[in-house]
């Protein structure tokens, strides 16, 4: 049994909130480069260049990549041989978010659903905890912007819809979203499980680095096929026309009930922000 003081978790979450919001991953920058080579629209190429320049400024000046610094979504892998001491885990994470958003000059974007009154410190955070073997704690902070989240959907297809049904729904969702979610997007797809599990799979799929292959060859092929269809839509960077509507499609799948065929499409804008650390 290893003891970990939750104060360490607060510090790590604080730092990850700031880092994720100012330092866009190399995988995303490389994806911009690959997109520029294929893009046919001159305006589309200009926009991709602007996004690279924006990322450079944000990193150098330690300012937010995007003003929507998101809902703080935290993925926690907690080793079962870890004993947390020094306070509550949930409150420790919230305190990290509070400090990170305050000290990093990040926008507080969380409000009461009815009155729209801002909570003032970007809490609560969304915490997804998984208990895993071992005595380590892995924390991933993935701030999620509202514009692209609003374009996401969960649908309960019928088993007879099959793989074609998945393709149709995902492509249609991207088409209907048009310019709203800040294309070029990353499309997270969750297939199977239950209603809520499909959504979580969709979100989790976004954590995979851009440019990496899906370890399941069947899903890897499906990702390429859907991406190809999406990039024929013509929506392009910022929806102003072009080849680059999405940078990638990522799929996570698990078994589902014999009566069900759940599908979640979680749209992610080009500011695909996530940082992780292991304690």
């Amino acid at each position, binding site marked *: 049994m290893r003891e970990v003081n939750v104060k360490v978790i607060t510090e790590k979450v604080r730092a990850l909130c700031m880092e994720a919001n100012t330092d866009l991953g190399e995988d995303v920058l490389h994806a911009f480069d690959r997109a520029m080579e294929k893009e046919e629209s001159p305006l589309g190429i200009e926009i991709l260049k602007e996004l690279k320049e*924006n990322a450079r400024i*944000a990193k150098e000046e330690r*300012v*937010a990549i995007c003003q929507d610094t998101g809902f703080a979504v935290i993925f926690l892998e907690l080793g079962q041989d870890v004993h947390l001491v020094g306070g509550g885990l949930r409150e420790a994470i919230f305190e990290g978010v509070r400090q990170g958003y305050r000290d990093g000059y990040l*926008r507080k*974007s969380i409000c009461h659903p009815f009155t729209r009154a801002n909570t003032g410190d970007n809490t609560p955070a969304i915490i997804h905890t998984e208990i895993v073997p071992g005595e380590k704690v892995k924390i991933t902070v993935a701030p999620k912007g509202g514009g692209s989240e609003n374009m996401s959907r969960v649908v309960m297809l019928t088993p007879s819809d099959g793989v074609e049904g998945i393709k149709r729904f995902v492509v249609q969702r991207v088409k209907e979203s*048009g*310019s709203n979610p800040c294309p070029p997007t990353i499309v997270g797809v969750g297939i199977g499980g239950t209603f809520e599990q499909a959504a979580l799979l969709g979100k989790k799929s976004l954590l995979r680095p851009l440019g990496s292959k899906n370890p399941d060859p069947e899903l890897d092929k499906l990702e390429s096929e859907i991406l190809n269809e999406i990039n024929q839509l013509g929506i392009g960077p910022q*929806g*102003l026309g072009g080849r680059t509507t999405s940078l990638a499609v990522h799929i996570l799948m698990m078994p589902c009930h014999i009566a069900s065929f759940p599908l979640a499409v979680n749209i992610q804008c080009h500011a695909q922000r996530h940082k992780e650390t292991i304690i």
Partner: protein
Amino acid sequence: MSEPIRLKTPLSDPEVEKLRAGDRVLISGIIYTGRDAAHKRLFTLLKEGKDLPFDIQGQIIYYVGPTPAKPGQALGSAGPTTSYRMDAYSPTLMERGLRGMIGKGMRSDTVKEAMKKYKAVYFAATGGAGALLAKRVKKAEVLAYEDLGPEAIRKLEVEDLPVIVVNDVRGNDLYVEGEKKYKKE
């Protein structure tokens, strides 16, 4: 690509009418920020027959909720938010003299019709380029609704803010035309 057009606010009717969907524009002068909650309040004021907190004639509203400014910055990161959420309020503001809106994403048919009727344009700024766009903001002050935090109405002095005309007064729509041009059957 052609050189961008330079515009200074407030906009005159001939300046607005000359703009075409697809034009790149650099905006300088005073613009006002406003998004969801601020629009709701402006709309309520007008419905109650009250004055707006600023003279809207010939002005531009930028749909943005910036991050807090770091020391040395006029304004924090300041890219556009998605515009359709302001659709319910925009025609009334155009009727009162609003001539430009900056945001991202498609507008409703009602808003597009109002742009034709009242001679106004809709510009897109690059969504997610908040750090880059903030560098074009020279001064910022909260004008109204400080309680709304990032959603407060701010008066910004901008220099060469880069935007693209999406909807013009003739009913052209760059989102529709751009997609059609690059769509593969």
